[in-house]
């Protein structure tokens, strides 16, 4: 099976990148092809990068509280580009009820503090294998 391509992105003005970098390194160590955007990205910059890099997964890391504005916008922009097949997942400081609302809006699973990176790896692999089967 080909490697899974992941864009790890930091939307908004939030500068906390410890989690994003740890996750990016863990996904790379698990054999995925990982691109990291760097900080302070607009949803437009993230969607453009996801399409141009032809990724399977976008992982958003957000700790600033702006998740209810920025995450739906990434979803909408990918949809506008005809790329709502890309899995949008992520994590950060996001209260449970907001996670539920975002998942209902179309994101994949969102993860909170203390999640082992192995859980993210398993989740992305399982999603990818299911999608590959569907496409085959």
């Amino acid at each position, binding site marked *: 099976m080909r490697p899974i391509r992941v864009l*790890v992105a930091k939307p*908004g*003005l*939030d*500068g*906390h*990148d*410890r989690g*994003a*970098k*740890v996750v*990016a*390194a*863990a996904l*790379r160590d698990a054999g995925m092809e*990982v691109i*990291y*955007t*760097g*900080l*302070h990205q*607009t949803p437009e910059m993230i969607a453009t990068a996801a399409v141009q890099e032809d990724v399977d997964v976008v992982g958003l890391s957000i700790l*600033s*509280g*702006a998740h*209810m*504005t*920025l995450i739906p916008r990434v979803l909408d922009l990918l949809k506008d580009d005809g790329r709502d097949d890309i899995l949008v997942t992520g994590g950060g*400081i996001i*209260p*449970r009820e907001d996670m539920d609302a975002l998942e209902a809006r179309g994101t994949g699973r969102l993860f*909170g*503090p*203390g999640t*082992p*990176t*192995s859980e993210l790896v398993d989740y992305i692999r399982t999603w990818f294998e299911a999608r590959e089967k569907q496409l085959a």
Partner: protein
Amino acid sequence: MTTAEMLELDRLREEVAQWRARFDAAKKRNAYFANSGDVVDPVYTALDTAGDGSDLELPGEYPFTRGIHSTGYRGKLWTMRQFAGFGTAPETNARYKYLLAHGQTGLSVAFDFPTLMGYDSDHPRSEGEVGKCGVAISSLADMETLFEGIPLDKVSTSMTINGPAVILFAFYIAAAEKQGVDTTQLRGTIQNDILKEYMAQHAWVYPIEPALRLIVDNFEWSAEHIPLWNTISISGYHIREAGATAAQELAFTLADGFTYVERGMARGLDVDDFAPRLSFFWDIHNDFFEEIAKLRAARRIWARHLKERFGAKDPRSLIMRFHSQTAGVTLTAQQPMNNVVRVAYQAMAAVLGGTQSLHTNSMDETLALPTEQAVQVALRTQQVLAYETGVPNVADPLGGSYYVEALTDKLEREAEALFVQIAEVGGVVRGLETGWLQRKIAESSSRQQWEIEQHRRTIVGVNEFVTEEGELTIPLLKVSEAAESEQRARMAAMRASRDSALVERRLGELRNAARSDSNLMPFILDCARAYCTLYEIRAAMEDVFGAYREPVFF
């Protein structure tokens, strides 16, 4: 050393060797320091310390290992300073009044992300972020509201602001002028530590060199005009939170401090004119004794370098005054009530290490900004420590402990070794440009994550002692979604009522001054007085300075 003393040391060495053989033969677990993974010895004796303790200075004496005050906390307790801010200026003003009414003794402003980055609340990049993790302050008008009814000559105020620090400082000074306060009496701190922004926290605006110019401009200007203000809070906090070990936090932060001193002296300032207003900010992590030793080592290293390397003569230049905050990164979303206990131990370490002021985190901060109830428990934690435990009664009560003295010496040695490495990569600025410093921190953070996942490090409630009902069961603060629209309306009203010709003139004067080598503080202050907005002032200088581009890697 006399013959008798040497014989005594030999006897001790022999005794410890025998004890060590028994220890090594016994069944036991290994122990490691919390972040570095270094092995902790099972017992410490006089063999592990530099001398027999008789060379230990008293509190308030150079090099201040044992504290900066001869009176310890008997003269003055630490300042209980809870970092707070959310929503709009009127909401945060109400929170400050609540905190002051409950016995808090200083204010500490948390700004929202747009403000931290120098964007106005009505800038397109601010959408969705206004008031979310701090208060939105876009002009003098907001600053006036923030401190309405709080006399600025009576409180000390700390402001966590870096990239646009001098702009927010100008708003504060102008707000004090509006209150009719004598601004030479203003007390407080702006964080203003841009080097650690590039290293760890990432709320930058300008490239490194112009950013350092603004900092030195402020050292120079404030020494004359706002002499009691701490012009910088050189911060290890964010470096540690980003993943650094205790030794890295210590060394990278002090190296930043030395860089500021060098830049000030390169401007031609006398070190004793600005060094007394430099302050520090440390993260207090879980490893109790290591944290205490870190604070003791920090004071000693700073005093020695300022005296021996930079030739400071004023005793106030040699003493390191610092704020501490318990480590946000140690809080867990799982079983959040446990965080109260973590914070209490960390707070005690900060006090045993001789902090001048302290913020204790609230139990709910891995999920949202804290509720009033959670903040009250955090503040009460400090009050119990101050008034019930007896801990503040004796200055440096752990001084002379073999373990704490050996650890203090160890951290000092490790920091000195890291200073050599930083010099080898070309100094702090070069180390930031190449990403060397950022990589060191990222490597430490990845190693810690791996250790947690491998169960080499226990986090109660996360990888051990897990309960099914691990999810949050305490109430969370919700920041009103109305904050953004209210703030936009306030901005529109302010823009409509100000003298726009004056605004343009002041911004033009600032832009011109930025092209020269004039001190920019008076120009920024004039912009603030004319109700130029945060982003307008930021942009006027950005026209000349450009913007910072980070080295991206993981």
